[in-house]
C-alpha cells in the first residue's frame, strides 16, 4: 500500500494520511478486514511522529473506516454501501463541475458537451 505525504503541503500530515487511506477504501484497493500497518510502523516508514499516525488512525476509527483490536492492530471496517455511493456521487459531481468550467473557458455550449458525452458514453 502506497502512502505518499508532502511535508510542504498546507494540509496537515495526519489529514494527508487519512485522505489517502479513505481513497483506497473508496477505490476498493483496501477491503474489509485488510490489515493496516501499525501506527508505529507507519510513523517510522513515513518519517513522522507517532502522534501524527495515531491521530490519523483515531479519526479514521471515529468515522467508521477502520477498527482496532488491542495487541492485534488496525483493520479496514465493513463499509456501508450507501455511504460509499454518496461519496462516489460527490466525486463525480466535482469532476463534472470541472468539465463544465473548462468547457466554458473554451466557449463550448451545453448541447455540444452533451453530444460529446453521449458519444463517449456509448463507446464505453
Amino acid at each position, binding site marked *: 500500500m502506497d502512502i505518499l505525504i508532502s511535508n510542504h503541503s498546507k494540509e*496537515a500530515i*495526519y489529514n494527508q494520511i487519512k485522505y489517502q487511506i479513505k481513497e483506497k477504501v473508496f477505490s476498493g484497493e483496501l477491503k474489509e478486514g485488510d490489515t493496516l500497518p*501499525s501506527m*508505529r*510502523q507507519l*510513523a*517510522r516508514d513515513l*518519517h*513522522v*511522529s*507517532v*502522534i*501524527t499516525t495515531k*491521530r490519523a488512525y483515531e479519526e479514521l476509527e471515529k468515522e467508521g473506516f477502520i477498527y482496532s483490536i488491542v495487541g492485534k492492530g488496525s483493520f479496514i471496517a465493513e463499509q456501508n454501501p450507501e455511504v460509499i455511493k454518496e461519496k462516489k456521487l460527490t466525486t463525480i459531481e466535482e469532476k463534472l463541475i470541472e468539465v463544465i468550467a473548462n468547457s466554458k473557458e473554451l466557449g463550448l455550449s451545453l448541447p455540444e458537451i452533451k453530444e460529446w458525452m453521449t458519444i463517449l458514453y456509448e463507446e464505453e
Partner: protein
Amino acid sequence: MENVIELKNIYKSYKNFQIEDLSLQVKKGFVTGFIGANGAGKSTVMKLMMNLIRPDSGEVKMFGMDYSKHEKEIKKRIGFVFDDDILYKELTLHDMKKLIAPCYKQWQDSLFREYCDRLELPLNQKMNTFSKGMKMKASLVMALSHQPDLLIMDEPTAGLDPIVRRQFIELLQDVMLDEEKTIFLSTHIISDLAPIADFITFINSGEIVFSKALHEIEEKYAIVRGSLELLDRDTEQYFLSIKRTDVGFEALTSDYQQIKEVFQDEVIVEKANLEEIMYYSKGGQGNVAFD
C-alpha cells in the same frame, strides 16, 4: 497516558540561576523534545532526571519510583546520551564495551554488534581518533545496547552532519516501534525534531512555558503582521509578544482562531514555527521595541 518522568514542584537555586516550582511530565511511548535557549535550564532539568543533582525541594519520580529508594532499578532502565567527551580516549569501542556491558544485566551483545554494523562504527579503532559524529553514534550505541525503557539525550544532534543526523533520527524511530519505550531529548536544532517529536516542552528562564503535542502548537501559535494603526490597548491583549518597526508590527499569538476572527483580512497570519515561538518568548510578555 502513563508518565515515565514526573517532576513536581521542584525548587533548585544556584548563585545566578534558579528553578522555582517547576513541574513537568513525560509521557510513556512517545518522543518529547525539550527546547529552550542556552542557559534556560535544560541541562539542570536533565541532571535532576538523572539524579546527578538533587532538588532543594520537590519530587522527582522516574517510572513512578523515587531515587532515594530505587536508584539502581531506575538507572538500569535509562540510557543517557549527552554531548560531551565521555568516552575513554585510549580505548577502542570493543574495550569500552567490555567495561560497560557487565554493569547491565540487560546488555545484549548481538544488539550492540548490530548497531555498530548499521552505523558503520569500527570496533578496533581508538576512540580519540573518532570524528564528532562517530563519538555521538558510539555513545548512542552504548546507551541502546542495554535496552533501556527511557532514553534521555542532551543535545544529541549538535554538530552532526546531515547524513549522520538522519541515521540517528532513523535509529530513534526504530526504537519507538516499541510502545514501551520513551525518548526525552533536548536540542537546539529544531528541524531535527519535526519528524519525530510527539510532544514539545519549552523552558525559558527556569520556567516551563508550555508542554504540548507538536500538532497542537502548530495549530494554535501564529505570527501576525499588520499595520501599527491596528494596535491599541485592547488589541494588544491578543498577543503574547509584539515587535514594532517603522513598517508595521510582528507579533506572536497562541490563539490562531481568535486572531482570524478579530482582525479578519487586515493582518497577515502565518503559522509560527518553534524557532519563532522561542524567539518571541525570549522577548518576554511585554512589548519589545526594535531599534
